[in-house]
């Protein structure tokens, strides 16, 4: 069975048939050839389906080996995208939170008529837990001077003590060396608020003839440096004063000093005292008297008190500039 005349003849015949088929199929669009083709295809389809049920596990295994690298890359890509998206989401939430905090600050400032410089706390200088100061990112470049009140939307945060060009050190109101002039809501009863520890301030009422009771609220008194009317906190408990003349009360501040983030520094105070306007209205509030523009302590009616044993005495200082 070599290259004989027979095999050559066979080749020629087969090639001729192939050409005939090609020509027929090329020229005609349907007819007997396409019928034959579809018949064979449907038959072969059945066989192929049978064969592929056997071979598909093999082909799947082979392609899974092939695809493992691609899948891993895809997984890495997707996890990277997820991390990016989560980061963006966190940034967005942070930005939204900041925007809300800023708008609350703005609202408070507008209500009080204060001119504010918003600032963010950069560092807490809590050394040995004895000092309650923080550093904020606003300084003399934006008009901050030492001795200005620092507030947030809840109320008093502290006051500036040292001011750099772009940063300031703020002593929180809870610092034991912080003393800020305060007065009781709805009256002119004057005193000072000293820091004790976070979550508790101490209010010293100068005029023992005035009444202070738990639930009373305090606002800053205002002075040459300090803005008036900033909410400080609520009196929680009366305390027997050791100094004798004055009256002491524990005050829970409105501000949670542990979670302060955005603050604003009151760089200019309004021409008129905002009074008690910044305090949130009480649910069933008795009509509060309109705020007095001139904050002068007027101990006119010393009512009879139960707690002190010493005779009532006038408040020691009238203008009560808070000592720092």
């Amino acid at each position, binding site marked *: *069975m*070599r*290259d004989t005349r*027979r*095999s050559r003849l*066979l*080749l020629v015949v*087969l*090639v001729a*048939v*192939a*050409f*005939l*088929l*090609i020509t*027929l*199929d*090329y020229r005609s669009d349907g007819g007997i*050839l396409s019928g*034959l*083709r579809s018949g*064979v*295809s449907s038959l*072969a389809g059945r*066989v*192929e389906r049978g*064969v*592929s049920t056997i*071979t*598909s596990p*093999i*082909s799947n295994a*082979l*392609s899974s080996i*092939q695809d493992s690298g691609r899948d891993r890359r895809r997984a890495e890509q997707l996890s990277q995208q997820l991390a990016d998206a989560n980061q963006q989401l966190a940034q967005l939430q942070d930005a939204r939170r900041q925007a809300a905090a800023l708008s609350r600050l703005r609202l408070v400032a507008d209500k009080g008529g204060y001119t504010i410089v918003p600032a963010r706390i950069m560092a807490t200088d809590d050394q040995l837990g004895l000092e309650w100061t923080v550093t904020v990112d606003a300084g003399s470049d934006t008009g901050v001077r030492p001795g200005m009140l620092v507030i947030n939307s809840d109320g008093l945060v502290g006051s500036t003590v040292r001011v750099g060009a772009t940063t300031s050190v703020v002593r929180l109101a809870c610092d034991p060396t912080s003393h800020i002039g305060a007065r009781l809501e709805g009256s002119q009863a004057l005193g000072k608020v000293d820091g004790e520890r976070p979550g508790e301030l101490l209010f010293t009422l100068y005029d023992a003839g005035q009444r202070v009771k738990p639930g009373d609220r305090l606002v800053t008194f205002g002075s040459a440096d300090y803005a008036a009317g900033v909410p400080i906190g609520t009196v929680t408990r009366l305390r027997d004063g050791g100094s004798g003349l004055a009256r002491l009360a524990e005050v829970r501040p409105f501000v949670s000093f542990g979670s302060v983030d955005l603050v604003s520094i009151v760089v200019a105070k309004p021409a008129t005292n905002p009074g008690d306007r910044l305090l949130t209205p009480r649910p069933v509030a008795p009509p509060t008297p309109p705020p007095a523009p001139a904050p002068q302590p007027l101990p006119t009616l010393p009512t009879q008190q139960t707690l002190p044993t010493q005779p009532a005495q006038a408040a020691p200082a009238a203008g009560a500039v808070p000592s720092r």
Partner: protein
Amino acid sequence: MRAFAVVISGMLLVLALLLQLTLVGQLDLPLGRPDLVVITLACVAVLQGPMWGASFGFGIGLLADLLSDHTLGRLALVLCLVGYAAGMLSRDVDRSVLVPLATAAAACGAAVGMFALCGALMGDPRVAPDDVAGRAVSMALYSLVLTPLLFPVIAALFRRLDPARAERR
């Protein structure tokens, strides 16, 4: 015994075609794909001579044509010629193991080239010259891997079915 060898050859080629369509054709291998049909045909032809090569090439080519959507007879023509040419080398098959290897590789390359040429002559838009060259080369390379596996099996089958003929060669 001779008829038995014909049946076995036909079954081998049909099996190769089915495996090609269901398994190998779906693999996403680098460069291209091996073609089991051409390799099997080359093995059969190089063992049994040009008449077997031409007729089985025509037959399996026609079946593959019927299962595809290109012009009927294209693969039949190509595989008929490839099988015939591979069969011409059957006298040298015992000289070296490289003969079936080279035959299969050349058959793969020639089959792709001729099929593409055929398509180009008939204006098949799927034929792109650089693509064809790459596929011819990759198919030839894959045949170098698969032929050493397939050829001994097919050769052993024919030797068992037709010992006298194997002696004659």
